[in-house]
């Protein structure tokens, strides 16, 4: 999917606003060092209208951070610019590459100071996740999330104070921030505007709508028999014909993700306190949430190996074997994980269905690529 510009009536409003802004110029910016003055650069925000698959939830945007063409353009630059890291080696895109559906192919991501405790999550459709971000849900919004990796001692190990200085001294970014947010002077560039821009870009990463699954749901194509069997297993649609694979509880359509957090049987624990990675429990403060993690989207999962929060499974077949086994025992393990004893044929059917969620256009969408 791609974005386009929403025009009707907007230019008139912008023109009026621009004129009003221009007429206020002398009073607003008086006292600003002329070398910091950005008001000579036009500020003409154009609303970015995201094309959404019809059955997707509405893309909600914060009132103070509506998506604009220049906002997304700036966010995309910041996303791929290693300027955010302490030694200018790591960008957001280092761990979220479009060629891997915005993951990095590693079991645990590499930061400037070593290996992170968990793997990178795919960012496709991340703007539609309204109930927590990261594996443990520690960020409520994309704006909040975008602030975190910069000061993480492993990931980017930088300080926002220094990033703000680098952005203010940069030959291009001051003009970019002016175009994106209408700031009047260079010192107004700050971490919060940078995070807003990155969040805008991330909201634009819509994927899906024309996968085999989507076209099947719209009645445009038939699935192959094995894909169809896998579909029935995934959503338990015909238990008289195929077994319930219990997948849809945590990976529900249309995003094949969930608003909830689940323990999918990766850690053995005799009690609520025995988890080596407590996940969501460390954020909610509830022992009953220990061992639970966000259920990631399964869209494009063929590109997002290795799997699970710690990347322990290299292939999708290993993932299916894990769920077929019922996983490891612990008090918070989902009640939907129990030995399912799939046959090899049933595993193959399930895998065939999962591959119908592939949208390879996301990987090459020019609007998502590194602009540098």
């Amino acid at each position, binding site marked *: 999917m791609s974005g386009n510009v929403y025009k009707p009536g907007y230019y008139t409003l912008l023109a009026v606003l621009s004129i009003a802004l221009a007429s206020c110029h002398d009073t607003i910016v008086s006292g600003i060092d002329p070398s910091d003055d950005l008001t000579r650069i036009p500020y003409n925000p154009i609303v970015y209208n995201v094309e959404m698959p019809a059955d997707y939830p509405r893309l909600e945007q914060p009132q103070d951070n509506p998506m604009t063409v220049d906002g997304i353009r700036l966010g995309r630059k910041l996303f791929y610019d290693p300027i955010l890291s302490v030694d200018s080696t790591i960008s957001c895109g280092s761990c979220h590459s479009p060629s891997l559906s915005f993951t990095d192919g590693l079991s645990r991501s590499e930061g400037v100071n070593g290996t992170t405790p968990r793997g990178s999550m795919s960012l496709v459709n991340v703007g539609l996740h309204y*109930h927590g971000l990261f594996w443990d849900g520690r960020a409520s919004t994309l704006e909040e999330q975008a602030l975190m990796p910069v000061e993480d001692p492993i990931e980017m190990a930088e300080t926002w104070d220094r990033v703000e200085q680098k952005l203010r001294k940069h030959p291009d970014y001051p003009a970019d921030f002016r175009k994106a947010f209408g700031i009047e002077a260079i010192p107004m560039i700050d971490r919060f505007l940078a995070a807003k821009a990155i969040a805008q870009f991330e909201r634009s990463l819509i994927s899906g709508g024309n996968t085999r699954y989507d076209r099947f749901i719209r009645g445009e194509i038939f699935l192959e028999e094995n894909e169809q069997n896998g579909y029935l297993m995934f959503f338990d*649609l015909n238990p008289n014909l195929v077994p319930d694979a219990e997948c849809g509880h945590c990976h529900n359509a249309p995003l094949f993700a969930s608003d909830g957090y689940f323990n999918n049987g990766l850690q053995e624990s005799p009690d609520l306190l025995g988890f080596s990675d407590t996940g969501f429990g460390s954020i909610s403060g509830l022992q009953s949430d220990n061992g639970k993690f966000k259920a990631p989207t399964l869209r494009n999962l063929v590109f997002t190996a290795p799997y699970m929060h710690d990347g322990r499974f290299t292939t999708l077949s290993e993932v299916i074997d894990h769920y077929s086994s019922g996983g490891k025992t612990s*008090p918070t393990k989902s*009640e939907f994980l*129990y030995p399912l004893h799939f046959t090899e044929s049933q595993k193959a059917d399930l895998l065939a269905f999962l591959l119908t969620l592939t949208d390879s256009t996301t990987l090459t969408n020019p609007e998502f690529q590194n602009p540098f």
Partner: protein
Amino acid sequence: MKHLLFLLSGAILLGLTSCKKDVEEGTMTIHFKAVYDGQPLQTFTTHPFENGQQIEFTHLSMFVADLALTHQSSLEVLDDIELIDLSFENLASAEEGYTLELTGVPARTYDGITFGIGVPPDLNEKVPADFPSSNPLSKTSYYWVGWSSYIFQKTEGKLDTLGNSDPDLGFAIHTGSDALYTTLEGDPAITIQDGKNTNIDIVIDYKKILQGVDIKASPQNHNPNDIATITILVNNLPNAFSLFQ
């Protein structure tokens, strides 16, 4: 000038008078409390179940819809839809329950209270993507494609089927589908006073909810063609709910 002052004072007085609200209103606080055999229900603690088995709950929740006070033949609808999460891991939280605060309730004495357990058919024909993220009906984890229905009620936990204090069977009993939407009514007089709060406890006994449910035989129940187990559970609801003021 003097006349002008009088006129101005009169206008201010008139304005102040007109600011006085016409309708007297109060607030109502409802505490939904899960109990098991009358005792506050904590998750991850065991309770005696049927046939010597022990049961522990890991998640309890339900949609409450069209919550209204009844007055003669009319309804004062207070809340369209609410997701009531009754999963509490500590005793104090279990005793407090899920709190629902309702404001702007017209002051009078009502004949009773009514609400549905589940999602009413007009809303149940929609899907989570139809709702903004602030609406509980946006939650995809409460929608089951196989039923083309929201999950009305989740009762999840583990059963010690061998009676050796080792819960060996996970269960997840979910209800849903239009046919199982249930309306409950209570007829205690409820008085709402102007400017005051009225407290109500709605207590749900899960021992009564699960009475006659063969968990061991049917620990999961998402077969769209087999609703026998969850029908038993839904039929138990009227007997499992109590209201206290």
